[in-house]
C-alpha cells in the first residue's frame, strides 16, 4: 500500500496548486459574459448553446433568426415615411431579438449597429435604437462607433440633418458599417438634392452588397434617378 499513499501525497499539493492557479486566472480574466439568467434565451438551442460554451455560436444563430425575422414581409403595402424611406412591417420584436443576440455575445458590434440603424432610420424608433446602443457602450465602452451612431440618431430625431451628415459619412467609411446606414445616408442626400452623392452610394451598394433585396432596391433607385435603364 506504500505506492498508493505516495500518490495520495502527490495529489494533495497538486490540488492546492490547481486551486491557486484557478484563483490567479480568476483575478486576471477580464472576459466576463452575462449569466444565462440575464440573457434569458428564447430558445432551447440558445440555452444549451450557452450552457455548453457556445455563446458566440448561439449568438450567430440568434442573429440569423433575427435577419430572417427582419427579412420577412409583415404586410403587403409599403409604408412610406421619413425621407421617402419605406418599410413593410412593424417588426415589434426587433429590439428584443437584437438584445438577445448581443446578450449572448456582448461584443457582436455589428448587431448593435445594424439593430440601432434599422430601429432609428427605418422605423423612427429612436428611443429603442439608443437603448440598444447604450447597452453596447456599457458592454464595450472602448468601441467609439456606438457614440457616433447615437449622435447621428439624436440629430435625426431632431431633424438636424446637417449635423447627421458628417457623422454618417464617417460611419460609412468603415467596413463594419451596416448597409441600412448607407441607405439612410443616400436618402438624406436625395432629400438635400445632392444626387451625385446619393447615386455614388447606390452604385456602391449595387456593386458590393451581398443582400439580394438591397441590390434590387439600389437598382430601382438608380433607375428612378435615370442612371440605369
Amino acid at each position, binding site marked *: 500500500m506504500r505506492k498508493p499513499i505516495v500518490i495520495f501525497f502527490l495529489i494533495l499539493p497538486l490540488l492546492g496548486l490547481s486551486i491557486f492557479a*484557478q484563483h490567479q486566472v480568476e483575478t486576471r480574466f477580464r472576459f466576463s459574459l452575462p449569466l444565462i439568467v440575464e440573457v434569458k434565451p428564447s430558445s432551447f438551442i440558445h440555452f444549451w448553446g450557452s450552457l455548453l460554451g457556445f455563446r458566440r455560436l448561439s449568438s450567430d444563430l440568434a442573429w440569423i433568426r433575427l435577419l430572417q425575422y427582419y427579412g420577412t414581409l409583415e404586410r403587403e403595402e409599403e409604408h412610406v415615411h421619413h425621407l421617402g424611406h419605406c418599410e413593410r412591417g412593424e417588426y415589434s420584436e426587433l429590439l428584443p431579438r437584437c438584445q438577445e443576440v448581443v446578450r449572448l455575445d456582448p461584443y457582436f458590434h455589428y448587431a448593435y449597429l445594424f439593430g440601432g440603424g434599422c430601429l432609428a432610420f427605418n422605423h423612427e424608433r429612436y428611443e429603442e435604437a439608443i437603448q440598444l446602443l447604450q447597452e453596447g457602450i456599457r458592454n464595450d465602452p472602448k468601441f467609439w462607433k456606438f457614440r457616433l451612431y447615437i449622435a447621428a440618431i439624436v440629430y435625426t430625431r431632431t431633424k438636424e440633418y446637417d449635423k447627421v451628415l458628417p457623422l454618417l459619412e464617417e460611419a460609412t467609411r468603415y467596413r463594419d458599417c451596416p448597409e441600412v446606414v448607407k441607405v439612410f445616408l443616400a436618402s438624406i442626400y436625395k432629400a438635400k438634392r445632392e444626387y451625385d452623392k446619393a447615386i455614388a452610394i447606390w452604385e456602391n451598394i449595387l456593386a458590393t452588397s451581398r443582400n439580394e433585396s438591397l441590390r434590387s432596391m439600389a437598382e430601382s433607385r438608380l433607375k428612378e434617378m435615370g442612371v440605369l435603364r
Partner: protein
Amino acid sequence: MKKIIPIIEYTLKENIRHKIFYTLLLFALVIMASSLIFSMLSPEEETRVILDIGLGAIEIFAFLSAIFAAAGLVLGEIENKSISLILARPVRRYEYIWGRYSGILSISLCNILIMSLGLLFLLFVKGWEFQFRFLLAIGFIFLKVVIISALAILISLISTSAISSISITFFLWVVGHVTDHLKYLNYVLLQKGVKITIFLKAIYYLLPNFQYLNLKDYIGNPNPLTGATILWQVAYSLVYASIATWLSVLVFSRKEF
C-alpha cells in the same frame, strides 16, 4: 518511462485504425463545409458565422473523439482482458495510464490540427483577416480536451460500463462550463438566508472550470489577454489534468484483472 512511448504508439495506431476516428473527422469537415451555406444567411457577417461554426465543430469533435478514446477504448481493453497481456509484462501501472493518456492527447491534437487547417482554408477563401486569438482559441480547445480526457479515463476506471462513463464525462463537460454560475447561486441563496458558501466554493474549485478556457467565445472581446493570464490558464489545465491522471493511477494500481 521508456515504456510509455510504445504505449503511446499503440494508442495512436488503435485510434487511427478505428472507423469512428475517420467518421468523426469526416463529420467535422462536413459541418465546417456546411457553414458556408449557413453563412449565406448572414451576408454581412459571413466569416464570423464560418469561424464560429468551425470552432464549435472542432471543439465538439475533439471532445467526442477524446471521450470515445478514453471511455470506449480503455474500458474496452479492460473488459476484453487484452490488458492482461500488457500488465503481465514489466510495465508499471502508472506507465500504462500515462502512456494511454498521452496517446489520446496526441491523437486529439492531430484531429484538432487537421480540422483547424480545414477551417483556416475556408476562412481564407472567404477573405478573413487572420487573428492571433484564433490560434489561442484552438490552443485552449486542446487544453479543454487535456482536462476532459484525464477525467474520462478516471471515470472509465471507476464506472462499470462505457455508457455510464460517457454520460458522466458529458455531465462534467456541461457542469464545467457553468461553474461561474455557482457564484450567482451563492448570491441568491445568501439573499434567501441559506449559507452554503463553503460547500459551493469547494464544488467550484473541485469541478473543472472550462469557462476560463472557452476562448472561442471571447474572440471578439477587445480586452487584451496577457501572457500571465495565458500561463496561469495553461498551468491550471495541466495541473488539473495531472491530478485526474494520478487519481486514475491510484485507482488502476488497485485494479485486478
